[in-house]
């Protein structure tokens, strides 16, 4: 795993010292809120509905056991004993006191973590495929490049005051698990001959104007990547709109200028910038060495094969394991979606169990997925039964990854000051309702994603079923979108029709899914496949009835 260089260490400590003084000056009255607000946001500190919220970056979603234990320690010492993992591979603490934040940042710096650039109009935490370095379908681990981007973007003097926030996602696999087409820049590793480079996607994003990113360049070599990205950012920084917050993201800049004109300007900038950049190969090799695969063991896998005789274990193995690049290993996804619990939340006790398992069985590596689960990327199959037993004891063995209750949900109006409705209770109610009906397994693969406002942190546009919570005349109201896709075949879902009241959204989803069970060709045809084959009509009819459809 990448370890901080002396430079990283000094920089992080200096920022903690600066912010400590800024907090002191705010508390003493030397700084007004107007002066302090941009400073706290630069350090990931928000003020939400009930309390402050500290958003901590987990670069490319990678953690070791020591870092996870420290997050547990922070949760116990300065928060309420839990943390919330987000759709951008961050962890949020929902209850810190302003005066405690410097101590929290010090505790984070002690384990090479920080909250820098998790807010504000800067380049945010660079996210990556959560199976990076482990997936069987991968060209190469994208995290060395993600780390290079972290170093390039952190405190980049030109890009601290962009027109709007800027999110980059990267994957090394043709199967996109990082939602690269819904980011300001998406990077997909591709090969040309022997050389690995990146397809660069620009102008994707969700929010009030959802757009699928477009390929601005089909192949940028590793040597050219930083100057090319710098050229995109510089073009956006100048051409991006600062007159209207809602038109300030790069997706609007690209859309309003047209991709060809935007690309021409990027190419012009790139020609200027390219000679000034020399990729230090030795430096990149050092980073790559830090992400070298662990020493995989060669040992029997019989224990796993035997355990498959236990139906509960077999269910879990079916949903929560993914093929590893080493046939003796598996990637374990640990669901943070126990039925009725808050999607993405882990208690401090659970964090310690995760840390222990990573240390004992997982080559000391953990990942956080944008789907708000935790991953042990490298577990020898012979150890899987022991891992499952420990997870079961900790309430972490829910066998639902990829199923209905594996729901993405933003914090919504239970926490967020921007929210227009709640998300979490809708996710909880859906999960328990379909468990009680006994339909979850039969429904099979399904992505439900819930956002509590139009900003779409819950990725509702790219859910097979998306739910958007709104405030309609002072009452919570939930709109349904259908047919979204977050993968390499990314698609924005279409709005099904009028929204549903808080107490009507679960029955509406039940009608929708019963209709799916009725119309699917066979049990192998997923909801997404059936929707693609049949279009929205049978599903709209289930939601609104025949009359409503004919009137529309």
């Amino acid at each position, binding site marked *: 795993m990448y370890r901080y260089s002396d430079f990283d260490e000094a920089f992080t400590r200096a920022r903690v010292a600066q912010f400590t003084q800024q907090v002191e000056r705010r508390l003493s009255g030397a700084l007004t*809120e107007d002066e302090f607000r941009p400073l706290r946001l630069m350090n990931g500190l928000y003020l*939400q509905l*009930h309390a402050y919220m500290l958003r901590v970056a987990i670069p490319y979603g990678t953690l070791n056991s020591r870092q996870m234990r420290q997050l547990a320690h922070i949760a116990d010492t300065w928060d309420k004993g839990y943390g919330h993992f987000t759709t951008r591979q961050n962890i949020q603490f929902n209850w810190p006191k*302003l005066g405690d934040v410097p101590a929290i940042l010090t505790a984070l710096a002690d384990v090479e973590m920080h909250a820098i650039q998790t807010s504000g109009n800067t380049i945010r935490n660079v996210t990556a495929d959560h199976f990076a370095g482990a997936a069987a379908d991968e060209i190469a681990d994208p995290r060395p490049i993600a780390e290079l981007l972290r170093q390039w973007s952190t405190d980049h003097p030109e890009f601290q005051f962009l027109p709007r926030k800027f999110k980059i996602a990267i994957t090394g696999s043709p199967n996109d698990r990082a939602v690269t087409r819904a980011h300001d820049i998406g990077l997909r590793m591709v090969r040309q001959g022997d050389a690995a480079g990146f397809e660069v996607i620009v102008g994707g994003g969700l929010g009030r104007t959802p757009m699928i990113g477009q390929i601005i360049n089909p192949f940028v070599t590793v040597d050219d990547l930083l100057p090319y990205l710098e050229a995109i950012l510089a073009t956006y920084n100048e051409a991006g709109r600062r007159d209207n917050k809602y038109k300030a993201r790069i997706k609007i800049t690209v859309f309003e200028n047209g991709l060809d004109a935007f690309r021409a300007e990027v190419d012009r900038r790139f020609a200027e910038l390219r000679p000034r950049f020399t990729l230090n190969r030795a430096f990149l090799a050092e980073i790559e060495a830090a992400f070298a695969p662990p020493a995989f063991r060669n040992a029997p896998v019989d224990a796993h094969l035997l355990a498959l005789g236990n139906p509960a274990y077999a269910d879990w193995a079916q949903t929560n394991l993914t093929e590893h690049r080493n046939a003796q290993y598996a990637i374990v996804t640990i669901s943070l979606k126990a039925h009725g619990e808050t999607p993405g939340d882990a208690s401090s006790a659970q964090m310690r169990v995760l840390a222990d398992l990573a240390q004992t069985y997982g080559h000391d590596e953990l990942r956080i997925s944008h789907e708000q689960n935790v991953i042990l990327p490298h577990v020898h199959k012979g150890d899987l039964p022991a891992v499952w037993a420990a997870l079961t004891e900790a309430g972490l063995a829910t066998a639902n990854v990829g199923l209905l209750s594996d729901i993405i949900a933003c914090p919504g*109006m239970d926490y967020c000051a921007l929210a227009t409705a709640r998300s*979490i209770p809708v996710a909880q109610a859906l999960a328990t309702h379909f468990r009680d009906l006994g339909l979850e397994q039969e429904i099979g693969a399904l992505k439900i994603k819930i956002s509590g406002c139009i900003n779409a942190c819950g990725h509702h546009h790219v859910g097979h079923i998306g739910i958007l919570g709104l405030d309609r005349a*002072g009452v919570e109201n939930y709109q349904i979108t259908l047919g979204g896709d977050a993968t390499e075949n990314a698609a924005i879902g279409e709005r099904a029709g009028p929204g549903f009241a808080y107490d009507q959204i679960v029955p509406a989803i039940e009608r929708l899914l019963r209709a799916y069970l009725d119309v699917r060709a066979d049990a192998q045809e997923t909801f997404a496949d059936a929707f693609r084959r049949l279009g929205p009509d049978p599903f709209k009819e289930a939601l609104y009835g025949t009359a409503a459809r004919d009137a529309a």
Partner: protein
Amino acid sequence: MPRFTPKTVTANDLRSGDAVWLTADDRWSPNHHDAELIEDEAHAQLRLLHAHRQGQIVVGAYLADARQGPAGPEPVHFREEFRTRGPSNYVHGKQAERA
């Protein structure tokens, strides 16, 4: 002319971030029922100006719709109601302090 909807002045405590309401005697209370229910628009603006000068105690003051209830002013909008209680997924925030 549309009738003025009664208001409270509300904000978050600078130190804890907790939701607070301005009382008639210029305190900031964590309890909505203690709030001054403002029935006059001009007075509401004066009270909001007063709140904006309290930047060393509270952050982000604004006017929120409210109505008189049996125990004191009550919120009208569900967002403001959540602010009097805390999140729905855990017994945290004000609801925990009351329990």
